[in-house]
């Protein structure tokens, strides 16, 4: 995305991204009490999917890739009808919280952000 469009859309990215983060945090909290709640797993999935898409179009490749891995993980659990374990949900919560900070503080610097540790963490909880 060119600089002019980036400047035009960064506020909207932050606003909508924060809404998805809130939905995902809420979904994780509910899943911790009821791990079989499919509606909340869908909310988690759609949130990760949309933050991925928005991040990629804004040029935030690392964040987009991280959300893609989270999306794949959640989709796998939905398709195979496997509830998340408490350990997995704790890890997801530990990843979403710093992602929130990245999203609400997004700027052109976010394009060069590396999230390798978070990627390794997501991969470590895959079944």
């Amino acid at each position, binding site marked *: 995305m060119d600089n002019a469009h980036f400047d035009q*859309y960064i506020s909207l990215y932050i606003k909508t991204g924060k809404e998805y983060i809130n939905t995902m945090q809420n979904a994780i909290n509910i899943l911790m009490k009821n791990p079989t709640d499919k509606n909340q797993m869908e909310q988690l999935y759609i949130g990760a999917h949309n933050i991925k898409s928005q991040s990629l179009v804004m040029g935030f490749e690392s964040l987009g890739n991280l959300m*893609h891995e989270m999306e794949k993980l959640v989709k796998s659990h939905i398709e195979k009808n496997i509830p998340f374990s408490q350990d997995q949900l704790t890890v997801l919560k530990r990843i979403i919280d710093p992602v929130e900070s990245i999203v609400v503080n997004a700027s052109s610097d976010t394009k060069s952000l590396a999230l390798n540790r978070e990627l390794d963490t997501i991969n470590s909880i895959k079944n």
Partner: protein
Amino acid sequence: MKVLVIEDDNFFQHFYSTKLKEQGFEVAVAKNGNEGIQLVESFVPNLILLDIIMPEKNGFEVLEYLSKSQAFHNIPVIVFSTLGQENDVKKALSLGAKDYINKSFFDFDNLVSKINQYLK
């Protein structure tokens, strides 16, 4: 020309509706598949831009509705895709979508070119 955007994400709803209106298209936006079907019937678009992963009826269900509709089965549909949706795109094309656009990349000119191609 009338374009219906069926997309649950507020960011992309705003982005595509704004950019398309700047190009002179008349645009309606639906935030899920159910709303999308309602707008197909009331707005009667010339072309549909369709997201696949949405709440309340996904893109595949919208494509199935369109394919069975005598009135609307000829409306060209371009689906939105993103990273990891290669299989979704194949399925959408098999269900009657004409083309796809990868919304991970900022390539609005390509989208307009495709829209004009299918509106001919």
